[in-house]
């Protein structure tokens, strides 16, 4: 078995309203940064797992994303998996 580390990004679907991102975009002029727009806010998740190979690790992470980490009705996810020394 090998140890892998996964980095996962969970983001609201592009077509969905993101009230949080919208409010943060709206605050940018107050910081003197009016050129910043289109803020969307998601979650970054890291985790460790044991697996026999990278393919299995990716499948496990994918399962965790689908079952728990992301709500597929509202969110999409992407991830990368790297082996740890």
């Amino acid at each position, binding site marked *: 078995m090998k140890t892998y580390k996964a980095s996962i990004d969970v983001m609201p679907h592009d077509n969905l309203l993101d*009230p*949080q*991102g919208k*409010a*943060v975009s*709206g*605050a940018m002029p*107050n*910081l003197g940064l009016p050129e910043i727009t289109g803020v969307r*806010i998601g979650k970054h998740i890291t985790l460790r797992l044991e697996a026999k190979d990278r393919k299995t690790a990716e499948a496990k992470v994918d399962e965790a994303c689908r079952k728990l980490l992301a709500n597929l009705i509202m969110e999409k996810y992407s991830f990368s998996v790297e082996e740890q020394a």
Partner: protein
Amino acid sequence: MKCGVVIFPGSNCDEDMVQVLEAQGGGPVERLWHKEHDLRGCDLVVLPGGFSYGDYLRSGAIARFSPILQEVAAHAERGGLVLGVCNGFQVLCEAGLLPGALLHNGGQRFICRNVHITPATKRTALTSAIARKVLTIPIAHGEGRYHIDAAGLKRLKDGDQVLFRYCDAEGNVHEEANPNGSMDHIAGVCNEGRNVFGMMPHPERAADALLGNTDGMALFTGLLKAVAV
């Protein structure tokens, strides 16, 4: 003597605060709009509860960049009195006017209920008029778990800057009486200058006999006495 209540977009305890300040003899209260650059000569500035800017990103994180906050900071710097309740406390911490931060409650849920708090110091305008050991004051927050690093906590204690701690009905401070997991059971703190106050419980919700609780009145008595001189 003049009191002002700041209104951010998303503030929702602003009118409650105005009503109580006026009922306690605080005179006509100024409503200070977040886009303004002028405190209109207010001696006491209150940041009320609510969800400023929706509390998106982190509670109070966006409000600290609003124009009025620059004036509030300058007022505090000059030694003027500032009180932040609930979201107001969160804004003052984000703005660096008070030490520490407010994290998601230990139970990860919003909690609205009456809690008991005990004053930890007499040496502030806010707590000077409190005669009782235990006050019943409601809380209503999802992010009220007070957090500060070890060195900061030591400075707070050494400087007698803890205003209130959560306690039970008899005034005993312990884990079961702490509703949100706050460090050292802290419910409110002040700055080193002792002129900026922040607390999660809502004293303005406990200041009307018709609602059956007047425990919060003593806090306003103390504050108004301090600005009256």
